[in-house]
């Protein structure tokens, strides 16, 4: 039995390597991990962007550079042109006495308030050297935004594994090989496991490499692997259902779009819903997987919580599987 399962797995590897899908599923998360590592410092910068005149007092420009990203321009025309561009940039230009703050008019309130406050602090002659403020640090080096992006990457990788199975099954149907499998000694369960192995291994490998690239070395790896494996069970169930429910790639494409909705909805629900409304997302296994991964990545996870989350993913995935079992059996026949 095991040999037959591995033969399905081996055949899947060979066929997947012939086209670019498996390679993409391996490479894409790694590329995205590199991109997250490169972009996060820019995304995490919450201060304002300022435009200033080159002819301004150099000490004014130097002062502002301590607190904001500053671009320097030759004349007021260039400044107004810059402010009028579609991103949020405020300008501070010298007048005969004092300064004028120029805004486009559609910036968030924070941009105006921040700019007004910075220029006021400059006019008051406030410097860092005379501060009485003490700064303590908890030593967290990873911003929550990066953790959220990496967690989203994990969710996407898991769903890609499911899509790999879906497209692979659509291909099997188009080639009429599913019927051929039914007349071999390999059982339907064996076929399912064999087809799932490649997606699972590829996804787990990609997740681990992505976490290493993004710098999450010191997380609890047992927890992340446990959450990953239970999430993969969910991805496999979804992948099989998508594959078997779709007669052609157009339908598979439509189904992929539909399944993206609960994935994205769960992430948005977890991040944006108030605590008292979080229960409205409990039906979604994607929600539990996302929550567990987030706790592990932010090093706030404990075993009871992780086991609860993975347990919920498992129970909900198995519920979907058993509800869909007649359909899976019918599809495989």
């Amino acid at each position, binding site marked *: 039995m095991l040999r037959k399962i591995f033969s399905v797995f081996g055949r899947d590897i060979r066929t997947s390597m012939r086209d670019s899908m498996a390679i993409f599923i391996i490479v894409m998360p790694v590329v995205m991990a590199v991109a997250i590592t490169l972009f996060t410092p*820019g*995304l995490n*910068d919450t*201060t304002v962007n300022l435009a200033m005149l080159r002819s301004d007092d150099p000490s004014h420009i130097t002062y502002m550079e301590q607190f904001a990203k500053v671009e320097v321009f030759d004349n007021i025309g260039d400044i107004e042109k810059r402010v009028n561009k579609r991103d949020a940039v405020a300008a501070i230009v010298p007048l005969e006495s004092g300064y004028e703050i120029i805004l486009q008019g559609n910036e968030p309130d924070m941009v105006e308030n921040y700019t007004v406050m910075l220029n*006021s602090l400059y006019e008051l002659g406030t410097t860092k050297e005379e501060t009485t403020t003490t700064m*303590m640090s908890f*030593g967290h*080096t990873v911003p929550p935004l990066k953790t959220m992006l990496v967690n989203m990457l994990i969710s996407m990788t898991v769903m890609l594994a499911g899509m790999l199975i879906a*497209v692979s099954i659509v291909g099997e149907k188009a080639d009429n090989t599913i019927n051929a499998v039914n007349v071999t000694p390999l059982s339907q369960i064996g076929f399912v496991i064999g087809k799932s192995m490649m997606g699972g291994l590829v996804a787990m490998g990609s997740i681990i490499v992505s976490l290493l690239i993004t710098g999450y070395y010191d997380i609890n790896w047992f927890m992340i692997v446990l959450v990953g494996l239970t999430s993969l069970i969910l991805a496999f169930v979804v992948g099989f259902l998508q594959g078997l429910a779709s007669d052609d790639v*157009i339908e598979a494409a439509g189904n992929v779009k539909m399944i993206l909705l609960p994935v994205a909805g769960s992430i948005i629900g977890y991040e944006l819903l108030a605590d008292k409304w979080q229960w409205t997302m409990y039906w979604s296994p994607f929600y539990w997987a996302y929550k567990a991964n987030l706790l592990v990545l932010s090093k706030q996870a404990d075993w009871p919580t992780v086991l609860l989350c993975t347990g919920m993913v498992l129970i909900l995935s198995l519920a979907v599987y058993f509800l869909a079992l007649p359909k899976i059996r019918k599809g495989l026949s």
Partner: protein
Amino acid sequence: MKLLSSYIKEMKIAARGYYFYIEIFFAILLLIILLVAVKENPISKETEFLFYDMPAEMVDAYYSASIAKGDVKAVDDTILEAKAVSFDVTDENTKEVTSYAFGDESYQFKTFEMINTKTGQLTETVYIADSEEAMIHMSYLEKKIGATMSLDANGGILYKYFTQGFETTRLKNLLYILHNESGAALKMTMDNQSVRKLGTIETLNARENMVPVFIVFMGSLMGFFIVMAYIFLDKSEGVIRAFAVTPSSVWKYLLSKTLVIMTTVAISSSVITIPVMGIQPNYLLFYLLLLISTFSFASLGLLIASFFDSISKAFGALYTIMIILMLPAFSYFLPSFDPLWLRFFPTYPLLQSFKEIIMVNTDVGYVLANSGIFLAGGLIVFLLANLRFKKTLTV
């Protein structure tokens, strides 16, 4: 005529298929989400944990004055549960390290909501702890900035910030100088700042702001994906070979497929836009840009499809391009993140153009210029795709 009959035939086939209705259903679902789950003015989730190491009367007097002015609102005390944890806190100046170890705790915080007096909106929730330990414990777990305020020998306030560690140097620099001057002096100087706005541009609320994203990523960009799926389906079923022996030319076949996508996207985008935006957008410009951008992305899909035999083989290219084209969404939602290189992605001007269209004062020139660029680019890519398909004869 051949093009029209091809288009009508393709539309009939699409209407019989499952995908066409999925698109419409998906658009209705997104509309419901927009109307029900996305508030026009979302409630701020910003929070801060504070501890006042000073007589309670002083704190009460400060908040009572703020409540009277209308920029603070007192709400019921909040009880927050905190898990057991141990960690170190480092003084950034002296590098002195203090270790903390907490058990499972339940803390009660006096709670105040900070209100924007102009808009009446909640800007931040402030939790005031009874002890510095409670503030540090929650600040650490919630990954929010905490602060202790104490009195110096002259009765002035000393600030001790507890930062997470990932804050930028620029933000920390601001925290260092923020309280050097008295609050009254700072407020007076701020009130005297001269602010000039170049225009009175109406901004979009949070719900309206989501519309361009849905239109670009669920509409125009989906044309790229779906046209590929249509082509590969026809390839696998041998329809294309059959088409090759008819008198109709290849470009008409490709254009009829593209027109089906444009029709689907126009319907699904209308389902989302009209109920949310009403009569505010310039619909002439809206449909012009929508159809042109869908045509351009579908043409790109055709060109990419011409290099592959099946969707499995095209999968890598397809998703890589889609993910790359989605990157400008970061800049759209985070205006402070706007690197120059991101502006060269076609979805960047597309998002901004749709935003312009749905705003009250549309920059017509900007939208028309982008529509022209997309049309020219789309035509060139379509011609290249046509050449590729004619050359390979495997369409």
